[in-house]
């Protein structure tokens, strides 16, 4: 990107809590005239000393605890450039907020206390910067006044840091000896360090040209954000240009459909322009009527993106609810949203030491190397080539919380390599030959609620009606297909995933499948539901209360769970999430089993 197009620089500041971050930013803001008199008065104590941290920490909770919790964005400008600085929290507990700041930054100032040298925090923040796309670092070796302005101290830190930064994927490091407290080498050159001939911190910020990772061989790519229809004839495709440039007459491929068209006009803010460039929010029109919607990508015909549905990724987990492999999350990449499942955690990375550790699940603030699988293929670019087409977030489907930030490393297979085997006898033909409509009846409820008893009675009634049914029972399936699974949350998710897939195959075979599984989590029942056609899946909640189920204790499991012999027992020390809107809610407390079964059969509308 040329300087004339890029006069604003967005950077973050990071480093350890006591390294003088607030003082440095406060001084930069103050010395460039970005702090107004009334704000400065509010941050000045009775002795006339300015508390720069008070200028920056804007939340009551932050002032109470004296720490920075969330990223604060501050603005200042010089004659040459305008700046947005994100002041990032240092504490490991807020790793996710630091990563958020890094994701939106083009450069970082990493602070090091000259007396202490590189700390865990320096290493952690540098590594996260590299992971989330910062390639350029200014290393501010601070408190030089406290080490006698010693060049040897500065050189040692600079050398050690350069090596570490290279390993973290940082491509350029500019080291500057400073004293934030005394204002040395921040805005004005310090006379105390004549051995240093480089720029001041501000000059370095003004002249820094961040390395770009927003171009895939300079080819045009635009994720479609919004389709603009106006009148009978106008259909424009709106989006922000994330790579290359575009002119009227260019041929484009629409991904993932692979259809081609030519650009007829490029509009910026309603004005037709001769060329659209990187970062512009554009509206494009094409020479053909093609069905294009949000999430599609318009790509240069000669340089289409790779398309895949399985990826090797790095994930930063940001939720207090741990990540469970097998659970399905919404994945948002560019403007495309698809369902995604982590199939495998290859290893966890200790953010302090970058050591690789084995893991079954990811906890908050942990980074893992994970394989993910998507419900449908997406056009993408590896993150190292494009933040916009290789960075993604995961969203929990129940709470809507943003639970992870991720980067695509590479595709595990090209989506085109695996084809769905077309079989000529289809589901409909099988259903007709059996004389029935296939269904999946999903019984959920506590252990001992009566699920299997009801399923059993339903199957007998169906048999009497001449219908073909089959029961998938939790206990039975665990003896065979799922005998490798335990009762942790991770294993429960996989347990349900497998049985849902089997139930789907059985309905494909034309059967009425009766699934009798505790299936304690809403997320997984929702995942199961989505495998089926509308109307094909009936969730039956067997709502027998815990006291009743426990008093029955047919298998003696509750007694053992209460005695602490069975860990993770649903209803005792593992949660059960009752359905919010099941197709049918039954219990066996007031109604006999045969009557309940009749209700279920009638709900099937055979």
């Amino acid at each position: 990107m040329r300087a004339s197009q890029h006069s604003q620089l967005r950077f973050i500041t990071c480093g350890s809590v006591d390294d003088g971050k607030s003082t440095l930013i406060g001084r930069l803001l103050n010395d460039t005239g970005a702090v107004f008199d009334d704000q400065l008065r509010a941050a000045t104590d009775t002795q006339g000393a300015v508390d720069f941290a008070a200028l920056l920490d804007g939340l009551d909770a932050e002032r109470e605890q004296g720490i920075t919790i969330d990223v604060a964005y501050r603005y200042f400008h010089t004659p040459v450039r305008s700046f947005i600085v994100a002041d990032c929290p240092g504490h490991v507990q807020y790793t996710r907020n630091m990563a958020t700041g890094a994701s939106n930054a083009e450069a970082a100032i990493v602070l090091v206390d000259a007396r202490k040298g590189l700390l865990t925090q320096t290493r952690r923040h540098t590594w996260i910067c590299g992971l989330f796309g910062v390639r350029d670092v200014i290393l501010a070796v601070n408190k030089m006044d406290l080490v006698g302005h010693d060049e040897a101290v500065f050189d040692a830190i600079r050398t050690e840091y350069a090596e570490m930064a290279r390993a973290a994927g940082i491509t350029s490091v500019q080291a500057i000896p400073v004293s934030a407290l005394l204002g040395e080498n921040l805005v004005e050159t310090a006379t105390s360090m004549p051995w240093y001939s480089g720029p001041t911190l501000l000059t370095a910020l003004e002249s820094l040209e961040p390395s770009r990772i927003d171009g895939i061989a300079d080819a045009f790519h635009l994720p479609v954000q919004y389709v603009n229809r106006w009148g009978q004839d106008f259909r424009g495709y709106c989006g922000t240009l994330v790579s290359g440039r575009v002119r009227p007459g260019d041929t484009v491929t629409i991904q993932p459909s692979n259809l081609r068209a030519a650009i007829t006009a490029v509009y910026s803010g309603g004005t037709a322009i001769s060329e659209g460039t990187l970062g512009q929010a554009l509206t494009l029109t094409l020479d053909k009527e093609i069905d294009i919607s949000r999430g599609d990508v318009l790509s240069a015909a000669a340089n289409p993106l790779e398309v895949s549905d399985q990826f090797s990724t790095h994930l930063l987990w940001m939720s207090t609810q741990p990540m469970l492999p097998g659970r399905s999350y919404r994945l948002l990449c560019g403007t495309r949203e698809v369902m995604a499942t982590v199939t495998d955690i290859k290893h966890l990375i200790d953010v302090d030491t970058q050591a690789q550790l084995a893991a079954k699940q990811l906890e908050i603030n942990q980074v893992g190397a994970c394989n993910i699988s998507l419900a449908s293929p997406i056009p993408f670019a590896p993150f190292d080539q494009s933040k916009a087409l290789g960075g993604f977030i995961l969203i929990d489907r129940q709470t809507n919380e943003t639970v992870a930030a991720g980067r695509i490393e590479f595709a595990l297979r090209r989506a085109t390599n695996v084809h769905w085997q077309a079989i000529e006898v289809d589901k409909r033909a099988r259903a007709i030959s059996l004389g029935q409509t296939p269904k999946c009846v999903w019984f959920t409820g506590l252990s001992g609620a009566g699920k299997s008893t009801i399923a059993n009675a339903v199957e007998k009634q169906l048999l009497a009606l001449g219908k073909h049914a089959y029961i998938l029972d939790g206990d039975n399936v665990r003896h065979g297909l799922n005998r490798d699974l335990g009762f942790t949350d991770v294993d429960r998710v996989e347990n349900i995933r497998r049985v849902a897939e089997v139930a789907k195959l059985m309905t494909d075979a034309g059967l009425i499948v009766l699934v009798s599984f505790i299936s304690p989590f809403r997320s997984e029942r929702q995942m199961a539901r989505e495998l089926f056609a509308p109307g094909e899946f009936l969730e039956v909640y067997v709502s027998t209360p815990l006291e009743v189920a426990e008093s029955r204790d047919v298998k003696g499991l509750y007694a053992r769970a209460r005695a602490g012999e069975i860990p993770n027992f649903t209803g005792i020390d593992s949660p059960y999430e009752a359905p919010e809107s099941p197709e049918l809610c039954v219990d066996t407390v007031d109604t006999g089993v045969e009557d309940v079964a009749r209700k279920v059969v009638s709900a099937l509308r055979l």
Partner: protein
Amino acid sequence: MTFTVAAEVKQNAVTGTLDQLESESIHILREVAACFHRPVMLYSIGKDSSVLLHLLQKAFAPAMSPISLLHVDTGWKFREMIAFRDMRVRETGIPLHVHTNPEGVAEGVGPFTHGAAKHTQIMKTDALKQALNLFKVDAAIGGARRDEEKSRAKERVFSFRNTHHHWDPKHQRPELWSLYNTHLNEGESVRVFPLSNWTELDVWEYIRRERIPVPSLYFAKMRPVVNRNGAWIMVDDDRMPIGPDEKVEERCVRFRTLGCYPLTGAIESTAETLDDIIAEMRASRDSERQGRVIDHDPGASMEKKKREGYF
């Protein structure tokens, strides 16, 4: 030290910045249109609203904006603001809804009788929540900027609000790259701030470059004012009580922000053009909100008001 600015260099620097800011804001507005069912833009008639309205037209041109406007009217705006609002709505053709808290009107709530804090709570915060519930709004776009105030510096672009419209600064959704999580459950909503990364100076530079109309209250003129607690309050209508120790004077003043007239202090100025305003702003040593009476109430910090549902 402060910088003396070479006008020519500055001009170039800002042009690139404005293009970048404009594209980002348009991207955000399009996300709103694509991802929400009942979005509105909160139009409060000031300079930031004027920029937003202009961006809204640009984002969806040549079509009409699919997002309509909502003005929460306290009944105490400058008269000129209301006339300007109605003119802009006629010119742009974008539908406008106006809402005033009917209970507040029935009780005769006003800043002179009830004080700044209570007036703001009832006629702004409560009225906003009423309007958002009434129109079942799931995304409300506002013109707030992060450089305005300390707690705003911590605000997200898409700011999540629970079913009671409350903001929880400790549990905000992380925002990475330009990926915005727009999923909501029933009754929840977001406030969207497309101008988050703009500064006051960017706003004025953009108004000048794009020739965006703004109310003339921003430009210096002789106006009748009263000095009240150190602020110049303009006598905009005869509802304003004049104390025995007060005197109405004609002074050459202008406004840096616009709100309810009894709560918005004017500054003495001779800036009659956009160039004058920009020059004055560059030289100013006081922040924009310094003239806002409600910001000086220690019991009603911006963070507290935002937690309760204020913008």
